[in-house]
Each structure stands twice: as C-alpha cells, then as structure tokens.
C-alpha cells in the first residue's frame, strides 16, 4: 500500500469539504454516520451505567448498615430517604431499575449498540450501515426509551419495583405495590421503545454483515468480533419480539382488565378481583424466552471483543478460529432452549425441568471451548499488557469463575436450595455482569483511538483495571457464601432474620469494596472524557492490528475510506506468521501466491508452526495427565 500517504492527504481535504456541508445538528445530533451513532450509544450507555452504579451503591449502603441513618439520603432521595432511612419500597425500585439499566441500557445498547455500530462497517469494509437512517432511528428510540425510564423515577409511587424481570402479579396489578402503578407503565413503555430500537439496529447489523462485505471478506475471514455481533443481532431479533408479545399482554392485563397472567390464587391473594383463567408462569415463559438469549446478547459481543483484543495483544493467531465460530453458533442455538432454568422453582412441569437442565449443562461445552481457546491463544504469546488486554484477560477470569457456578445452578435439584439466593446474584454478576462490563471496557480502551483519534492514558487505565478487578471480586465472591447459607436476594434488611446476622460484617465488606469499585470508575470517567480533547494523538494503527478498521484514516470521514474500499486477502489473525518480517499482516495485504485475486486463499500456512515442543514431550504430558485421571478415578472408586 504505497499510496496510503496520498490517500491520507486526500482524506484531509475531503474532511474539510464535509465540514462545510454539515452543521452541528446533522453532525452531532441527528447524525447518520455509524461512527457518530456508535459514540452516541457509548456516551448514553456510560451515563446510564453511572446512574445504575450509583443506585447499586445506595442499596449496598442499606444492606451493610441497615440500622444506620444517612443524612444525605434525605437530601438526595427526598421522601424516599426520610430521616436518613431508605424507604423499603424504594429499595425494591432501586434494585429493579439497577437491573433494568444494567441489563438493557448499558450491556445491550451500550455494549452491542456501540461496538456493532462502530466495528461492523469498518471491519467488514462497508461505507456505512445498510440503512443509515434506520440506524439513526435505532439510536433515537433508545434515547427516548432511556428518558422514559429515567422519568419513571419521578412519578408518584416511584419507578417499577417488581424486579427487572417484572413478574406478574406484582407487575400485572397496578395496586399490588407502590411501584406497580405509573412507574410500571412507564417501564413497559420504555421497554417497548427499547425493543423497537433493538430490532431496528439488529436488522441493520445482520443485513450489513451479510450483504455489504468488501470483496474477499469471506464469512471465514471475518474477525470474531463481527461473528459475535452478527449472532448477537440474530439473537435479539428472534427473542425481543417474544418479549414484545408478552409485554403487550401485560399491558392489557394492567390496563384493560384481561387476565392472561392472573389465576385464582392471585385473585384470592389480591382480594376482591374476579380475574382468573391465566397463569403467571406463562409470563415467565415468554419473558425468559427473551431473557435467556438476552444473557448471550450481553455476553457474546464482549467475548467477540475479547477474541480480537487477546489475539492482537498476544501477537498470535486466535486459537481455534473455526471452533470459536462454531461455539458462538452453538451457544446461540442452545440459548433458545434453556430459558426454563430460570423457572425451576415456579411449579413448572418437572419434565420441562429436565429438558431445560440438559440444555443448560450442554452450554458448558461451547463455553469451555471458548475459554480454553483464549487460554491457548495466550499460551506462549508475546503478550502486551495494554489496559484493553488486561480487561480482556479479566473477562476470561470472570467468565471462568462465574461460569463454574452456573454448572451448579443449572441443576434443577440444587436450584431448590440456591434459587433466589445471593449465590445466584454472585453467579450472574460475575459471569454476565462483570465479564460483559470488562469486555466493554476492553473494547473502549482498544477502539478509543478509532472513535476519537486520541489515546487514553495508559497509567490511569492500569489503575482503573486493578481497582475494578479487585473490587469486583471482593464484591461478588463473598456473596457465594451468603447464598449457600440461604440468604435470599432482594431483601431490604437481612438482619431482620437472626440467622443472617452473622453476615453483617461480610455485607459491610462488600459495600466498602463496591464503593472502591465506584471510585475506580471515576478514574475511568476522567480518563475517557479528558482524553477526547487532551489525549495523545493516535497513530493510524496503534495496536498493530490486522483488521480493516485500522486501514481507515484516523480522521473520520463519511464513507470511512477515501478512494476505494480495501479488498481483503487473508484472515484477520496473521500475527507472528513464520517467515514474514513483520509480526502482523493486515487483511488488505495480498499474498504473493494470490496473484491479486482476493478470492484465492493464501498458500502459506495460516497458523505458525509450533516447533518448540518436541513430540516426545507432548507424549509425556499426556501420560502424566492420564495418570492423574486414573488416580482421580481410583480415589473416587
């Protein structure tokens, strides 16, 4: 690519030209450029994330110091914090809105919205999304949805308080609890807007990936990020409509007197209502048909980002590229047939319990494939510990420690003990909360130069990582023990029960760790916003990465590449290729054997030969491993 320099100049000119055409509104607000929409998603997501985190700190303080009065509660929460005591109803509202914000607004829209928008066109080699207009609508629906959700904090009765899963009857009867009134209605409105946004976005992402790849970008040459975003979009597209149907029926139950989710038990408990014939479990089926794929909607983009970041910073090809793709597909498929493992304790048909348990345990297989592939990629790599890399490794760590408890929770019998305890809270906060947040952070640190053209401070990044990593483990790891002892989640004050009094110290420890984690995010926020203007100018390819987005000029232009879109000649993981001078070969560099035809596979082996370990040694290892297994089974027998 000798003409890169010329292109660069041309791009500068182009940019200047573009400035004359675009005014502030069309450039920063109603932008149709995917890079700007990505930034809008990210910043909205960060704001929502901050709100969600602050909420968690408020209820963590309540859990750690149930008898202490905090004067500032009254000043910031008004009558919800009268005399410095958190109102129990508002506690429920806080956990509900914290869950909703984190699951949907931060980790769905903020994560996959940001990076799908930023990376799909850039990494597949497209000028923009298939439909930039729908892309803009997708952001604005998301934005309005966020506003509606935040407005629900200020209505009478407070925001929705039925938990982020909004199970009926709490959500179906407006008089059930204070939050079931206007707050719940606004929650549903926000969710419908959110679903519309997710669908508009998802349709766009899928179409762009399938239809608009540049020449030579075969499906098997796509970076794993794109595979992850594609499958994420498919998951969202297929599961969100089911929630739409479920919420529609919920709206009718709430406001028009139907009884899809109400049966005689509920009617009797509520008293004075003649509404029977439905079943609250039905809502749970519809909700979790979305809800479980949603977990992977959150996790898969994070895993995709991690694949890319780990390969780049290990200077090694990703281990098992095809196995990674197959495991993404397997996870996606399995995620649709396991929703009932959230419902073992609802009185669901025990036969279904066994079906769902089987599927759930099978998910461990593709997840383990991914984990071991990450470890194998790191193995003997020339590792560069950038902040992005640290966060990616952190994701792997959380994915393992949270995933392992998933194997316990997937068992219907064990779930009798563990359901709705802090064990579950610990499990999903590690495996999908922390892991996905770390994936998102990894993505932010890695692609920040692509988004803003400047670099974030590395040292602040390290501080941010270590504080967050340590505090996340300190917060969520002790919760396992509370859960095993039977401490239920969502309770306002565990000290109301004598047997849980022993955990008060642990709760205080968790809260202190959470506050530490909150302070760590201040470091990040400062780093993020300060570096936009004052960061070091970024070179074109700061991480020496192979994917196409780094061949685009640093300055953003509408259409991404000045001149022609580069063609793709190879897979994205040609790092440390034997016999090559450079330790990375971008995808747009042709191999001699291809004669300039991007459709031909390059002749040279794509994976470097590992000659360091002689075959003898490998054999010995195997023997040792089998001996170990033998001993294990001998011991067990």
């Amino acid at each position: 690519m000798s003409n890169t320099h010329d292109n660069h100049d041309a791009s500068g000119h182009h940019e200047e030209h573009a400035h004359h055409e675009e005014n502030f509104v069309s450039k920063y607000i109603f932008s149709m450029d995917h890079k700007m929409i990505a930034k809008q998603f990210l910043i909205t997501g960060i704001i929502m994330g901050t709100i969600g985190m602050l909420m968690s700190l408020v209820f963590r303080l309540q859990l750690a110091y149930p008898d202490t009065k905090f004067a500032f509660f009254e000043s910031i929460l008004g009558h919800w914090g009268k005399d410095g005591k958190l109102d129990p109803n508002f506690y429920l509202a806080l956990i509900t809105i914290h869950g909703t914000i984190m699951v949907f607004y931060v980790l769905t829209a903020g994560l996959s919205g940001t990076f799908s928008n930023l990376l799909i066109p850039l990494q597949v080699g497209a000028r923009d999304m298939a439909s930039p207009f729908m892309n803009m609508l997708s952001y604005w629906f998301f934005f309005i949805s966020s506003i509606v959700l935040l407005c629900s904090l200020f209505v009478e009765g407070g925001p929705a308080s039925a938990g982020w899963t909004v199970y009926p009857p709490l959500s179906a009867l407006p008089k059930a609890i204070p939050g079931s009134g206007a707050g719940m209605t606004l929650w549903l409105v926000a969710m419908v807007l959110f679903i519309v946004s997710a669908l508009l976005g998802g349709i766009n992402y899928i179409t762009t990936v399938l239809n608009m790849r540049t020449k030579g970008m075969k499906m098997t040459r796509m970076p794993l990020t794109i595979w992850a975003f594609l499958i994420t979009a498919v998951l969202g597209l297929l599961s969100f409509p089911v929630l739409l149907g479920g919420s529609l029926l919920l709206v009718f139950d709430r406001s028009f007197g139907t009884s899809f989710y109400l049966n005689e038990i509920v009617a009797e408990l509520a008293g004075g209502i003649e509404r029977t014939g439905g079943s609250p479990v039905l809502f749970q089926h519809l909700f979790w048909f979305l809800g479980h794929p949603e977990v992977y909607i959150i996790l898969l983009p994070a895993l995709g980002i991690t694949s890319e970041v780990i390969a780049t910073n290990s200077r090694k090809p990703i281990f098992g590229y095809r196995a990674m793709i197959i495991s993404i597909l397997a996870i996606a498929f399995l995620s649709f047939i396991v929703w009932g493992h959230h419902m073992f304790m609802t009185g669901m048909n025990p036969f279904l319990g066994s079906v769902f348990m089987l599927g759930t345990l099978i998910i461990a297989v593709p997840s383990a494939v991914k984990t071991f592939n990450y470890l194998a990629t790191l193995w003997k790599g020339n590792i560069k510990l950038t902040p992005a890399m640290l966060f990616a490794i952190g994701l792997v760590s959380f994915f393992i420690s949270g995933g392992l408890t998933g194997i316990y929770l997937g068992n219907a019998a064990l779930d009798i003990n563990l359901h709705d305890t802090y064990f579950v809270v610990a499990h999903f906060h590690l495996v999908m909360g922390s892991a996905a947040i770390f994936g998102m952070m990894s993505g932010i640190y890695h692609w920040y130069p692509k988004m803003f053209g400047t670099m974030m401070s590395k040292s602040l990044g390290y501080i941010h990582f270590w504080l967050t990593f340590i505090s996340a483990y300190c917060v969520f790891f002790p919760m396992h023990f509370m859960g095993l002892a039977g401490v239920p989640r969502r309770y306002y004050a565990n000290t109301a029960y004598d047997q849980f009094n022993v955990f008060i110290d642990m709760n205080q420890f968790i809260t202190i760790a959470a506050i530490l984690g909150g302070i760590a995010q201040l470091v990040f926020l400062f780093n993020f916003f300060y570096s936009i203007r004052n960061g070091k100018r970024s070179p074109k390819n700061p991480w020496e990465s192979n994917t196409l987005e780094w061949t685009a000029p640093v300055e953003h232009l509408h259409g991404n590449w000045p001149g022609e879109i580069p063609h793709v000649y190879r897979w994205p993981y040609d790092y440390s290729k034997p016999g090559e001078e450079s330790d990375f070969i971008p995808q747009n560099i042709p191999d001699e054997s291809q004669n300039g035809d991007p459709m031909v596979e390059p002749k040279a082996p794509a994976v470097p030969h590992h000659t360091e370990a002689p075959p003898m040694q490998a054999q010995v290892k195997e023997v040792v491993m089998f001996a170990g297994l033998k001993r294990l089974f001998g011991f067990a027998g």
Partner: protein
Amino acid sequence: MANTTTLEAEKKLTWGGGKSPFTVSYGKLMMWIFLLSDAFSFSSLLVTYGFIRFTFPASGANEIVKPLSHTAENFVEAMREAHLFSPEHWPLPELVFNHFPFLHGLHLPLFFVSLMTFVLIFSSVTMVLAVEAGHRNAKKEVAFYMLLTIFGGIAFLSCQAWEWTQFITEGASLHGNPFGPTAFAALFFIVTGFHGFHVLSGVVLNFIIYVNVLDGTYERRGHYEMVEKVGLYWHFVDLVWVFVFTFFYLI
C-alpha cells in the same frame, strides 16, 4: 469433475464479499429479516393462545344446532343452558362465529371467515401481479393491481370490523364474554386485533406506494423494488391469517 470445480468456485464467489450472497438488495433482505422477527411476535401471541386453551377442558360435542338451521333469538342463553357455553370450558368456535351479514338468524359457522380468507388470498394475488407487472416496468398495470390490493385490504378490514361489532354486541369484551372463559374473547380481540393492525399498516403502506407509482417515482428510479418489498409484507400478513384462521376458527 470440471463441473464441481466451477460450482465450488461459484460458491466461493457467492460468499466472498463484494456483493450480496443472496443476490437480493439490502432493502429486501431487511424486509425478510423484519418479517422473520415479526413472525416471532405473532408466534408469542399464538403460543399464549395455545397455552391458555390447553389449560381449559374442551367443550362437549354439539348435537343441537345443525348448520344452515335457524337459530333462536336467545341462542347464547340456550347454549349456556345446554352447557355448551360455560366459563369452565373452551367454547366450540362453530357456535360462536356463526353469523353472516344480512342472513340474520341462520346458523352459518365458518362461512363469513372463509369469505374473509378468500378476500385476503385474492388481495395477495393482486399484489403479486403488481410485483410481476413491476418487473416489466408496466406502470399502469402496477397501479391497477395495487389499487385492487388496497381495496382487498379495506374489504378485509371492513369484514373484521363487522365481525368484531357482532361479537361485541353479543356481549364479548376484554374482561368477559357469554361464551366461555374470559381469556377466549380477550385472546380473540388481541390476536385478530394485532393482525388487523398489521393489515391496516399494510393498507397504509400500499397506499403510499400506490401514490408513488402514480407519481412515477419508481419509473424514474428504473425499478419497482419498493412494490416487491411491501408485497413481501402483504403476503406475510396473509400468511399469518392462515394460522389465525386455523387456530381460532377451525380447531
């Protein structure tokens, strides 16, 4: 042997990027994907219908009223007395949807809804004829068939409005009905309502496209792909009706 290699080369070209692997434009692909996702929202409603119906016992067989026979003025009460209508079990659709406009007092199960089905199938045919005319860039034919399709859609909606009116005057509402469990009428209103909403938006879309056709927008553009896209949507609405028809009226 040579054949397989060319085939393989072709396959590589298909997914090799630089063009659509399906040789459809992004707009059409988007419409397909949207319809896939919309099919899931209809499925969720129909699954709800199935679930709730499964939680109720089936009705006993109807040995009293024969098709084409005259029905009494107090038909619903009579059925209640005969235990064919009861909140305890799901009613027989033949006893509920047995009216036909202008033929009051006759037991005509399924006739009216069959008529509605034909109207919708016919409007699907005119739509696909409009698409076909679009391939030949025959503006007048496209406009003619689009107009027929719009009329078909309006006719269907009118039929539905009549049926809803009939149903409501007999006492059905979202929170009660004289025929059986509350959920029976509620599900009928929500599922046919959701479908009707799709038909209505289809009619609106078709009308916009029709105006554009008359305006010559697509003639200037050189192709009538927009007609194809709304056509896909319109057929999808027809497709959903096939299942609404099966589940609500036949079974």
